């Protein structure tokens, strides 16, 4: 048993190592377009992990994720920039994450009382409120035109193209540098979220989702855990907001609208509710697909070249159609999300590899007691 366990662990370590190596090597081979897709995907993945924790694991529907992303993004810009306190950017980034967490904490009295679809509508109010504030509080948010984002600087190293840096013959601009920052932050997100989900808090949150009554009777402080889920989720959203701000280099109010919230919901549903890997896969899917389709749509049949208006479908519209179709197909053929799809494929592969001896001792599908259970009248 322990031998098999340690072997599985070694395999997993091997895969992790390979994935990290490939991800670290990519900036040496990819141009800025692909790197930018990667940056947006990593930021979205962090945000999606946060929403997955709240909606997928703890079962609290939130349409307000865009609000907490905005708090993180604008919090960073204001804290690090002018006008604003002009703090060191690294400090500003950390404070922005905490600020988003505090915003989630402020909302938690509402979250503690309202459930299900009613909570969804209550969080919807946050998005409209946030959007209004972003548009009107000019001195902090820059109003309709937004604000430019000060580049992050850690220990004298700037994540921008200001200074020249060449590694192994590859010029390292803002995208390349931010790529590694994004990877590091995503790794932190993955590590902490998996720890949470597998640990005591994760089990308590799952219990809340499946039955609040059972959770309470087992000793889970229901209202406390409901609020905590909101705070933690908002902190991940805040971090994602900071990452997005750094990748965009400019924050504008219109980005943080209801559509963004819905995008994040789409990410966790497409990826598969309740898992970190699923949220990540969904985030990459929802972020990268429209960008890729817009870029390559002109190579598809029946799509007009950009700029021409001869009645054919424009590349942007075509990209939208394909994106929509991809979502519908995913939900039809992978109702438990990309994560579930991968898991099923892997199980089938393993089954085929071990097919000759069909005795699957690990399979619990036939509990021994069910064979002897007979119908019996209850007195």
């Amino acid at each position: 048993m322990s031998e098999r366990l340690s072997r599985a662990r070694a395999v997993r370590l091997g895969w992790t190592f390979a994935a990290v190596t490939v991800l670290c090597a990519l900036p040496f081979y990819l141009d800025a377009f692909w790197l930018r897709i990667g940056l947006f995907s990593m930021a979205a993945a962090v945000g999606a992990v946060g929403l997955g924790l709240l909606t997928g694991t703890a079962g609290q529907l939130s349409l307000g994720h865009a609000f907490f992303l905005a708090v993180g993004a604008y919090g960073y810009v204001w804290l690090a920039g002018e006008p604003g306190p002009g703090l060191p950017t690294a400090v500003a980034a950390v404070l922005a994450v905490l600020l988003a967490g505090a915003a989630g904490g402020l909302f938690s009295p509402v979250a503690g009382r309202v459930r299900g679809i009613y909570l969804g509508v209550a969080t919807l109010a946050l998005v409209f409120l946030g959007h209004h504030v972003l548009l009107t509080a000019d001195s902090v948010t820059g109003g309709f035109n937004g604000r430019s984002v000060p580049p992050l600087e850690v220990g004298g190293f700037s994540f921008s193209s200001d200074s020249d840096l060449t590694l192994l013959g590859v010029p390292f601009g803002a995208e390349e540098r931010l790529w590694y920052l994004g990877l590091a932050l995503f790794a932190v997100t993955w590590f902490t979220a998996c720890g949470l989900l597998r640990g005591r808090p994760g089990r308590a949150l799952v219990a809340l989702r499946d039955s609040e009554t059972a959770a309470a009777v087992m000793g889970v402080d229901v209202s406390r855990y409901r609020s905590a889920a909101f705070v933690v989720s908002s902190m991940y959203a805040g971090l994602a907001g900071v990452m997005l701000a750094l990748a965009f280099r400019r924050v504008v109010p219109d980005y943080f609208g209801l559509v963004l919230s819905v995008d994040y919901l789409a990410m966790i549903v497409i990826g598969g509710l309740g898992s970190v890997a699923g949220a990540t896969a969904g985030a990459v899917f929802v972020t990268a697909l429209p960008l890729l389709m817009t870029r390559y749509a002109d190579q598809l049949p029946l799509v007009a070249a950009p700029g021409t208006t001869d009645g054919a479908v424009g590349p942007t519209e075509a990209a939208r159609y394909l994106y929509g179709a991809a979502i519908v197909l995913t939900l039809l053929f992978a109702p438990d999300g990309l994560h579930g799809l991968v898991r099923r494929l892997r199980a089938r592969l393993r089954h085929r590899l071990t097919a000759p001896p069909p005795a699957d001792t690990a399979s619990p599908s036939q509990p021994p007691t069910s064979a002897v259970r007979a119908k019996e009248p209850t007195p």
Partner: protein
Amino acid sequence: MTTRTTAPPPLTVTDVTVRFAGLTALDAVSFTVTPGSVHALIGPNGAGKSTCFNVLSGLCRPATGTVRLGDADLTRLAPHRIAALGVARTFQNIVTTRGTVADNLLLGRHALSRAGFTASALRLPHARREQREQLARACEAAELTGLGPHFDSPVALLSYGDRKRVEFARALCLEPSVLLLDEPVAGMNAAERARTVEVVQAVRAELGLSVVLVEHDMGLVMRLADEVTVLDFGRVIAHGTPDEVRRDPEVLRAYLGTGAETEDAA
């Protein structure tokens, strides 16, 4: 499972009344669960047995009356605080969470473990150590209830009887001093019933806890219970040892029918 050195405190229910919009579900109900005994609550459907359990576990607040566990007043406490004091329960309709048997049993260890959000997220050494220890405890509870072979199986794949057992094991994981069992053998076949009775007797002997039992299976009640309280329309109509209750004319009229039928049910 560690054996308690001291006897569990008595659970005292005094004059508890519960009303739901004009309907009196419990009417001045009083009884005391003697430490270390098996106390059965019986009565026809709608007699208020489950409401009584909900009051004991804090899911339902009585209009008047008190529930005390030793010196602690449970009447106004939130359910999770009552759980922390050592009152565990199972549900009539099985309420498990998705995930494996291990996940469910570890949930039962929630009140007895400490790791919070920060410690778990950063996987601090003490949180990981605690997780390992709790897993070992949960494994013991699974062995005790005969769930050992299913420890890593998803609960959804288990048979009905096994899922009832998961609830039972999860309640045991709380290391309770009072265990509330709501129809623990409903829907089980004879072998599974016998097995559950064995386990209840074993945990009572080993852990020295008090058990409050709601059950329709009269044979099982008569075999397991030290004391029986009979409810009818929210009122206590009889109280005593199984033999006394069995002979009580009021009980026979309200619930058991004739004596011959009682024997049949066994």
